[in-house]
């Protein structure tokens, strides 16, 4: 239950390896913020600086308005869940969860009450007398969360807590973390490299690359209006398709012209282009796989391509096609909209025509890679 404020935070390893640079962020009380990015982007380093496990090279970190730069982790009133659980192997589950409370010299009865309450919420009551090595991965992660929960700390830090779990368990635990969040209602900072976790868990997402924040926003904001090409490609799965092409401004209307087709930009995107008075220029066009539609040879907006891979996901198809110019494009098609005949025809080497939804296109500068209208 506290705010966290990072001002111009910088981390340099050794002499000149800059892990995090110019990190500025204000996290509101009870907010759930997710740091996401590829490995080596500095997200874990930032979390560890907040925890006090890494020194801060420059800048300040405040928790609840107090600068904590030089405070030991134990004095920051934070709780943390580690990727590899970090349970004390020589202690039982109960002792693991009671560890921090006993260090604080809490009364035995209170310790018991706290631990059993947390165990109850997490459904691990029957495991309390076991040692960590007798637990499965999912159970260990629950214990690790429980150990952090009993603390009632100001900030709850989680460093890739689901990365060591298998896919099915990960989905289940993700849902449980959302539920848990309702129950313990404190400030969360969550680090992951998985954009699905970031999108589903976060109130706000901080997308990082090479130690620098690329964008901060709600899941909807970063999905609909990515600041730059990196964010656009990082958020969403399968990743956004990009085409280098021309944006044409004609009589106040905008068109993109990939592969000789001419597709009009519609809706808010067109309004914004007009507002900013964007001129005809070469751009990188980004279109998400779900915003590409199949069409037929008669459609003037249709772009011909050949099917390379057809991934049947159940409710949808992921079609990997290759255009006449040799560019690879991924198309996500809802299977419910396809007739049996069409589905059967989408085999290796068959020709399909695709086109873009006019209102769901993204425009990036060829050199700057920045979104032209964000």
């Amino acid at each position, binding site marked *: 239950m506290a705010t966290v404020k990072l001002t111009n935070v910088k981390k340099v390893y050794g002499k000149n390896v800059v892990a995090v640079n110019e990190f500025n962020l204000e996290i509101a009380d009870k907010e759930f913020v997710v740091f996401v990015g590829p490995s080596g982007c500095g997200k874990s380093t930032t979390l560890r600086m907040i925890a006090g*496990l890494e020194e801060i090279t420059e800048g300040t970190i405040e928790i609840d308005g107090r600068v904590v730069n030089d405070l030991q982790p*134990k004095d920051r009133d934070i709780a943390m869940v*580690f990727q590899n659980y970090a349970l004390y192997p020589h202690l039982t589950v109960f002792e693991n969860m009671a560890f921090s409370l006993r260090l604080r010299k809490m009364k035995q009865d209170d310790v018991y009450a706290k631990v059993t309450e947390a165990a109850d919420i997490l459904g691990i009551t029957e495991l309390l007398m076991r040692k960590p090595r007798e637990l499965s991965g999912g159970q260990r992660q629950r214990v690790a969360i429980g150990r952090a929960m009993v603390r009632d700390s100001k900030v709850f830090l989680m460093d890739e807590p689901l990365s060591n779990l298998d896919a099915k368990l990960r989905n289940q635990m993700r849902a449980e973390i959302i539920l848990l969040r309702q129950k313990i209602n404190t400030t969360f900072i969550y680090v992951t490299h998985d954009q699905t976790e970031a999108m589903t868990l976060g109130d706000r997402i901080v997308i990082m690359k090479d130690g620098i924040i690329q964008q901060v926003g709600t899941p909807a904001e970063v999905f609909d209006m990515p600041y730059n090409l990196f964010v656009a490609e990082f958020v969403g799965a399968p990743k956004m398709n990009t085409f280098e092409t021309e944006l044409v401004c004609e009589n106040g209307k905008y068109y993109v012209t990939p592969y000789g087709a001419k597709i009009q930009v519609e809706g808010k995107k067109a309004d914004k282009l007009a507002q900013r008075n964007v001129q005809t220029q070469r751009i990188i066009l980004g279109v998400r796989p779900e915003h590409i539609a199949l069409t037929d040879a008669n459609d003037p907006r249709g772009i011909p391509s050949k099917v390379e891979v057809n991934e049947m996901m159940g409710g949808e198809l992921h079609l990997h096609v290759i255009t006449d110019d040799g560019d690879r494009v991924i198309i996500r098609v809802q299977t419910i909209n396809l007739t049996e005949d069409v589905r059967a025809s989408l085999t290796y080497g068959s020709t399909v025509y695709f086109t873009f939804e006019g209102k769901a296109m993204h425009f990036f500068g060829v050199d700057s890679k920045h979104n032209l209208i964000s």
Partner: protein
Amino acid sequence: MMRSNAHHMGMRTKTKISNTIIYIVLVIMMLIWLIPFVCILLESFRIESTGKVGYVIPKVWGFDNYISLWTKTDFPTWYLNTLIIGLVVAVVQMAFVLCTSYTLSRMRFKGRKGLMNFILVLGMFPGFITMIVLYKVLSGVGLTNENAIFGLMLVFTASSGMGYYVSKGFFDTIPKSLDEAARVDGATRLQVLTKVTLPMSKPIVIYTILTAFMAPWGDFMFARYISHLTSKGMTVAVGLQSWLNTELMTNAYYTRFCAGGVMVAIPITLLFMFLQKYYVEGVTGGAVKG
């Protein structure tokens, strides 16, 4: 099928033969090793003659040699001296070694690598080349002969931190995130060591204590240098050896000398019997756990 069976049998016989040979060699080696110990043990119980005789198995058995060893000689003083030195060194050395190992395993500070290299190089010099200097220093401050106990404690504990390799190797295998979890949970560095690292390191703690106790217990060279004048400051090794210097003691009280040798072996044998499994884990633990 037949062929492969026959082949299999052949292999099995071969293994059997080679195992038999290995065991025979080992048994012979063990016997050669054990002969002196068995001789001493048997002679210590001989009471029909206390001098040197031409046979091994006593004709009359009894504890007379032990009784006279503990009541009529300085042996109890030497034994107590050695025990005190061993225990103090074991405790102090354990503290030094574990702190050094934990620090070098967990903390990152300027000169850490250099310090480790320095210790490595220093360790390559045999300890006895410092003997004369050490003797001069210790006699200068009056820690030889009657005060030799303190001198010896000092000598054995002074550089003990340098023996950090095995336990550092063990600590290195304990994930760092456990330390971090404990620190976030509210532990100081010392509490991390005592409440998390050490409870997980029982084998290495026992290994450290054992080796620390054994070094002064079995040492002769340093002890002899530092205390050779008065019986008051002698350890068992020096005391027993002093008996061998006189004709009388060697010839007339040979069995009592043997009883002394057996007494020296007892504590170490007991320690090993009870702590053997930890000892093996300690020596190999750091190497394979990673």
